[in-house]
């Protein structure tokens, strides 16, 4: 027995296996080339937001501020501009925690000039431009570095870096041997097709160039012309869409929230689509469950208004059958439909606007505008030439959407190319907004920059910073920055140049 005790003692101080025991069998601790494609896919899915984040970050935010949708429930108050602070944090989680570290791992673990590094940089710009366009100055140049303090950077420097990254990435991709694919089956957007990635990167460069066209017209022109020269998206086959899956919460976010049916077509988009007799009306939206009509709700309805039968979700139009179907009893989501990232029609509209600015966009404003409309129709399966021709030459104007509030028509612009530049700019704005549906993030950013399309003011603002008649301009910084990065946040707020609230305009938002 004493021997047993001694044996026990010697066993007890044995720690030979301890390091191995303390290695998690269900996780990976060393990143090699083998893991990078999986990390790229994670970054892609996260940047575009899976269903967990889509609702609170995009659907209950930018999608409402772009007035594609309006809330039919009183459970959320963001449609009345009363923000839910925790949701700001979620957008930061999406970009900084779920996207950036994976991209940085790829950049750090691939050779300079590699296709993998190039794709990572393109996704980086995609993720960060959406974030900075929501908040303004953000921590950028030191993002994804394991530091206790991360400084904020001004938007002009961030935008400048976007252009640099996209330019270099495109050059690197162009230098790859013909037929090279990058990340292949792991790439959820283009299956590794380098040509498509080049066009996506250039299109984004064009988008960002237009964004700064008021604040920095010289750089804007240079970047836009270079982007077009290097090849932007020209056909729907080059559109960026993202593969989705039933597994791992990776469903199409819009399909998911559409099942919950807490929002409907906004009266703003109803006024345009109905007035134009737009063939996309029945594709973007579907008839109401009760009454079977294309009905809409105004943004910012009060609780009392939302209690009216006419404003109930079942009495109004949900998004189209691409995302959700009604089987007569319940809504069933098409959860694995590809998620739309960017389309060729947007490039044409951007070029049309550039052409109006006098830039070399390889076409006239009018032809680019009309080509954009045609591409958008084709993208959504509208292929009847006569219908499209009629639409392009239509003089129909937006009309009263026929909502509970008896709203009058939201604007007076027809589809048919106008004769004066101001109208042409508005038309491009309206048709781009219609073409990029349901990308509320881009639509809200462009609305803030251009003021187009014209929108209804929200019926009621519960946000004292945004009095009646005004529109929301940005989102305040998340509270976690107060607790975890206060000193830098304070400097970041100074860079913002206004109060850290929803009324302060961003750098590129100038009149």
């Amino acid at each position, binding site marked *: 027995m004493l021997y047993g005790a001694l044996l026990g*003692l010697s066993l007890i101080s044995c720690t030979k296996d301890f390091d191995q025991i303390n290695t998690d069998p269900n996780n990976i601790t060393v990143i090699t080339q083998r893991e990078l494609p999986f990390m790229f896919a994670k970054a892609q899915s996260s940047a575009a937001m899976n269903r967990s984040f889509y609702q609170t970050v995009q659907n209950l935010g930018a999608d409402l501020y772009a007035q594609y949708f309006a809330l039919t429930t009183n459970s959320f108050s963001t449609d009345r501009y009363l923000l839910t602070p925790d949701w700001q944090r979620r957008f930061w989680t999406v970009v900084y925690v779920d996207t950036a570290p994976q991209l940085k791992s790829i950049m750090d673990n691939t050779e300079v000039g590699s296709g993998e590094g190039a794709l990572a940089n393109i996704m980086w710009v995609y993720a960060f431009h959406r974030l900075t366009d929501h908040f303004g100055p*953000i921590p950028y140049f030191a993002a994804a570095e394991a530091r206790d303090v991360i400084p904020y950077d001004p938007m002009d420097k961030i935008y400048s870096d976007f252009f640099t990254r996209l330019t270099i990435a495109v050059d690197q991709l162009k230098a790859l041997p013909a037929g090279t694919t990058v990340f292949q089956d792991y790439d959820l957007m283009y299956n590794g097709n380098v040509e498509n990635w080049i066009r996506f990167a250039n299109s984004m460069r064009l988008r960002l160039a237009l964004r700064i066209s008021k604040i920095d017209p010289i750089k804007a022109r240079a970047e836009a012309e270079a982007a077009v020269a290097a090849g932007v998206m020209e056909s729907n086959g080059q559109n960026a869409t993202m593969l989705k899956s039933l597994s791992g919460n990776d469903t199409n976010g819009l399909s998911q929230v559409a099942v919950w049916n807490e929002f409907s077509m906004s009266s703003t988009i109803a006024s345009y689509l109905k007035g134009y007799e737009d063939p996309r009306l029945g594709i973007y939206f579907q008839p109401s469950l009760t009454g079977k009509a294309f009905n809409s709700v105004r943004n910012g309805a009060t609780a009392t208004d939302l209690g009216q039968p006419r404003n109930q*979700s079942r009495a109004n139009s949900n998004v189209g059958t691409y995302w959700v179907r009604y089987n007569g009893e319940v809504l069933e989501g098409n959860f694995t439909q590809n998620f739309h990232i960017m389309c060729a029609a947007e490039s044409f509209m951007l070029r049309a606007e550039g052409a109006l600015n006098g830039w070399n966009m390889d076409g006239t404003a009018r032809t680019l505008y009309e080509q954009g409309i045609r591409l958008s129709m084709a993208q959504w399966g509208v292929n009847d030439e006569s219908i499209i021709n009629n639409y392009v030459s239509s003089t129909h104007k937006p009309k009263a959407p026929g909502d509970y509030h008896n709203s009058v028509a939201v604007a007076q612009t027809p589809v048919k190319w106008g004769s004066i530049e101001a109208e042409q700019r508005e038309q491009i704005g309206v048709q781009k907004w219609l073409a990029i549906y349901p990308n509320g993030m881009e639509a809200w950013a462009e609305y803030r920059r251009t003021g187009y399309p014209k929108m209804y003011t929200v019926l009621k603002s519960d946000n004292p910073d945004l009095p009646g008649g005004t529109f929301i301009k940005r989102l305040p910084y*998340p509270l976690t*920055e107060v607790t975890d990065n206060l000193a830098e946040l304070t400097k970041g707020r100074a860079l913002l140049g206004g109060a850290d609230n929803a009324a302060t305009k961003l750098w590129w938002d100038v009149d």
Partner: protein
Amino acid sequence: MIARIDSKRLFFLGLLSCFLFFYIGRVQAQQVARTGKVTSATDQKPLAGVTVLNLSTQLAGHTDQDGNFSIKAAAGDRLKFSLIGYKSAELPVTTATALTVSLTQENFTIDEVVVTALGIKRETRGLTYATQQISSSAVNDARDNSGNIMSSLTGKVAGAVITTASSGPGASARVVLRGNKSISGNNNALIVVDGVPYDNSSAQQATGTTYNYGTSDGAANINPDDVESINVLKGPSAAALYGSRAANGAILITTKQGKTGRYTIDYNGSAFFDQVNLLTQFQNTYGRGNGGVSGSNIGESWGPQAQTYKNNVKDFYENSATFNNSISTYGGTEKLQGYVSYANNKIGGIIPGNALKRNSLNLRVNTAFIPKLKTDVKLNYVNQKIDNRPRLGDMGIPVEAYIIPRDMDKNELLDYETIDPNTGQPLRKYWSGSAIYDNPYWSTNRTSVNEVRDRITALGSATYQLTDWLSIMGRYSFDKYLDNTDGSFFASTVSVGDVRKGGKYYEINARYQESNLDFLVNGKNPLTERLAITYNLGASALRRKYSSFQNMANGLSIPNEFSLKMATTPEFLAIAGYERRLNSIYASAQFAFDNTIFLDMTARNDWTSTLKAPHSYFYPSIGLSAIVNELLHMPSWVTFGKIRASYTQVGNDADPYLLRQLYSFGLGAGNGFISRSPIKAIPDLKPELTKSFEAGLDMKFFENRLGFDLTLYKSNTVNQLLFLGLPMASGYSRQYINAGDIENGGFELQLTATPIKRERFSWETSLNLSANTNKIIALHDKTKRANITDNNRYATVVVNEGEKYGDLYGYAWKRDQQSGKFMVDDNGLPLVEANQKLGNFNPKALLGWSNSFSYRRFTLNTLVDARIGGEIVSGTSAYLAAFGVADYTTMYREGGLILDAVDLNGAANTKAISAQQLWTSVSQNGRDGWGEFFTYDMTNVRLRELSIAYRFDLKKMAAFKNAQLSLTGRNLFFFYRGKSKLDIPGIGKTNNPIDPEAALGAGNYQGVEVGLPPAVRTFGVNLKLTF
């Protein structure tokens, strides 16, 4: 391979070991002059190891294996015979040559002897630290309806803050002794059953950000009927022997075992009845609608005046019944003793369908067949089912019930589904367009989460008496349980988020295993006539292993056929597991001088797999106590007096897998994803260290009629494993660091008195009073604040440098800096400021007062307990306000409330608002309510227990050895209950809608609740029979 220990520790350990062994060889018996024999009064067997002390000469000796002793003594000298577990005896030496002494066995629960660490019985007089002995009736008589033995201790242990999760039968309980010490780690006391730590972990705690199903814990598996006694070690003094897990104190449970010569059958049966005790006050004037206008599909009760239904929420909850039946039989011979028990508990919950069913079987055999070898084998099996675990929190079932419109009658409520003509299956029906809430009747009938646990604990130990002063014990124990949880959700359910076509079904399989191999050498020797030493030298190897995974079928091919085989997209989720090992050696020595002054020293070295090489850390303790009434001259009415002091260090390892950065694989589009963990690894992780000092005074007067036991303590926990926020832009949401210094200090006072002690009537009373103060001396040079969890709904629970553990921060009503008045916006509605201190969840003081009155065969027991101070932020309250159902929302329905406040320019507010404007604004739809408006004082005083027992006259009932019938009640009423902290001008203070001690879970996230069910009151009858 022997791990490297640094030289200082080696030196200390070596010194202690040498010290112990140096003397062992030197022990010699005294020359005989007088001889005699000591036997047991019960069975006349010889008693070995009895200390024989000549009080005149102070020479001492011991009896041998046959009970014989010899000691030098002159006629007329007085000899004192003492042995642990027996009453001491004193005899004068007469001229007779051989003395015969018989000692009477002491009942174990008498406070002279307690079971301390590793099952070692020690006299309390020698202990250098505070313990509190609790009798088994404390957990047996008036049982808490959670069925958790820890909950039944509420108010009975001085200084224990016991918080029971409000998740119904099987709920977990948080037991914090002497304050919270760890920010990210465990603060619960260790539970030890028969000398072996008993796993008390619970699944991850609810934080209220979304719905959750509460958690059960290990203590909920203990059958109260098997408990013989409970001893609470409040400080970390036991840690030297139990290791780090005892840093928060330990609750030592001794279970029953067979005894020689007594064959007994015990029956204990009880029936309890629970009813809703405290349901918030609703308004009963207004019905569905908004702005005083009725509307269709509206969930809120902001409509016009209507016919309301006062009890529509109350009627949703059931009066539930609980039945406990247990039978045990035990007895034995000198060589073989056995104990067998079976218990069946069925505890009903107030939420329909919710119940716990527990069967436990306990078998224990002690043998002494081979001379000097004793064995102890125990086998315990528990099968515990919890049916329809209630969904709590935001979107939980209680929230669904609280927000029932006031004008909705039961018939309308029961109309919770329609039949889908396509499938013939039920479809959810709800009164509003909400995609967040279901009808609570749909939730209880069409969703269910059930849990089954099978747990086996086994223990085998053998003790060999090498010599009369040295024994060696070897022990192996294991504790293993399998948890199976299944969840079924009918198609169209919305309240649990994503339920896909056909419905959702899942199974979670979790498996936990812990084994412990121990060797322990026990010895005791008189070093000189006046100095004796008791010592232990031990080693142990602890292994813990956990694994779990979830099989998910979200989307069922045949609607509402709840089987994994029906999955349209089968998926494994949440695959997790760990293994960890801890090897230890430890030593302790107690020197007893004249059996009146005691010096205790312990030392322990641990090697853990969760820290980096060399994996090792060391911690010592030292304690001193003295029996003052024997040392000093004291008045005769002082029966007993002891002072004690001790200093202890306890090291603590961390969770597994923190050292290396983790990257995890997850399913998703394409081939799946790999992502870096949002938690930054800590490669240079150090063990936490708690340094604790305590001093105490234990006095008894007037032949034990009056007594007190006072303990003062202070502890500092340094090198905390903190879970700190990093700027999110770093790519990490949180990081682990070692930093900080948390100080706890306070006192525990137990007063006991027997004011009346007559033949027919007696009155015993005892009072527990304790207070703990906490201070965060330091956190980290880079951050002065750590969040206890990420959740920031209603309030964030934080630790701020310079302040106290558990501060609650959230939105507060903005005050004008000059006038101090509340501020309003242009609409006359409150303006708020984020990140303001709202309170702290810890009570300032606890008080428990129990009384026992005996008259003839009747005994009346009462327990009143008070919790003083502390705040809770109630999300439930925000919901009640948001939906216009709380009683106070009747004021200013028509408008006209001008808040006594100033606007942004400092001018007096003139804007009138309505109740709906005010409450919907501050409650933020109920889901994100502004904390200060819903913060309540947790102070409460309640009648916790009341029981009347009658002992039958056994002369008339010869078949019984004991028979008792009692009527009990628990949580009967409040003497006082704190109100809201905020006094809203024009409205006043409001009542807390929930039990102030209600909790979402038993983890460190306290002080914030949402969606808890109402508290219950319990009545019952209990019958105890002994054959």
